[in-house]
């Protein structure tokens, strides 16, 4: 089963964040936000790597880390499937996250700065 809505991954090759981490973080975000649902099948490593113009190792590492985080599972002959996160973000938390992102953007923060802000709060807490 493929995602019903169009879900995208965007790579910024000039960003300080390594490409595999960008792929992992965006896919994890889509899964936690519900854009990728349980049972959705991710593209095969070779296809997503070709679409992004990166090596298969880059996407392979992102998939492995998603699997280690319990967000996807890889089965032989089936592929990489989204599985339920151990602690799914409920609708209320998702709404608050969306509001926070909108507020941060209104304040003029770039997306990367928003992520840095959250990381800073997480590490301080």
């Amino acid at each position: 089963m493929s995602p019903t809505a169009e879900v995208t991954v965007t790579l910024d090759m000039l960003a300080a964040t390594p490409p595999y981490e960008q792929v992992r973080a965006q896919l994890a975000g889509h899964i936690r936000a519900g854009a990728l649902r349980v049972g959705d099948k991710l593209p095969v490593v070779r296809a997503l790597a070709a679409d992004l113009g990166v090596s298969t190792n880059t996407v392979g590492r992102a998939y492995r880390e998603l699997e280690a985080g319990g967000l996807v599972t890889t089965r032989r002959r089936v592929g990489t499937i989204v599985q339920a996160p151990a602690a799914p973000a409920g609708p209320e938390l998702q709404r608050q996250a969306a509001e926070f992102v909108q507020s941060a953007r209104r304040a003029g923060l770039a997306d990367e700065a928003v992520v840095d802000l959250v990381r800073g709060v997480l590490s301080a807490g």
Partner: protein
Amino acid sequence: MFAGLILAVPLFLLLAGGVVVMLVLALTHRPDAALSAELASARRHGVMTSGVATAMLVLGPLLVWVATSSLLPLGPLLGVLPLAGAAMALLVLLAGELTWPRPRGTTRTAVVRDRSAGDLLRGGWARVTAAAAAALVVAVALAARLADESGRMVAAGRTDATGARVWSGSGPFPGLDYGLPQLVALAVVAGLVLLVVGAATNRAAVVAADASTDQLLRRSSAARAFRVALVGTLLTLAADLFFGGMAAGNVSVGVAHAVAVAAVLLGLGCGLAALVALLWPVPRLRAVAATSPTPAHA
């Protein structure tokens, strides 16, 4: 005279059909100006690869012939030349898929969508090619059953006026000596088609192309692979039926003779069908109004 016609008629049909197809393609071609630079580049890549593959389909058998005629027995070698040409053309198509333009910008976006090779294996080209391959396998199996021990001739016995059994043989007949190399070549071609379809499934999506246009380009690549395999298979089948029918007709009488003549005619039909397949356009971006860039099928 008859042999001359057998060569001249298909060549004339190929040329005339080619001109008609080129005219139709030119009139319904969506110009590069109506496409994004990436899409135009991808289309050029596909068309150029297809052109080289078609040239290889035609010239490949000659190359194989020159390279191996002193090493391999003449008859079986002739029998596999169409499929050898198809295999060489498929190698060109595979190289084309593996060198498909990749995204190069500093910001790259990919749609998270699972692509399945099964989508490209369900089209009409796939079905017709599978049917032709099955027909070739059946023809080879039947011919192997009918051929004599040499595997290159067919023999039939009749009782003469004195009551003695008289055997007469005729060839070339596509027994196992011809058929086995053909089946091996068919398996190689089928494997190469699957490799091309797999590569077309997993190659980079064309930047800025919508999902249906991207899928159309993939279907186009798969159809080119099936077309090449179909032409090689049909030409092999045509040769088996034609020469097998001719040989069987020389030694048979009554119903068997009628079946042999039908095989000859069927062989000519298969040859004609191969020419039609060679000229039949694959799915492509057709000319549309500039405001509605929806892909259509050929």
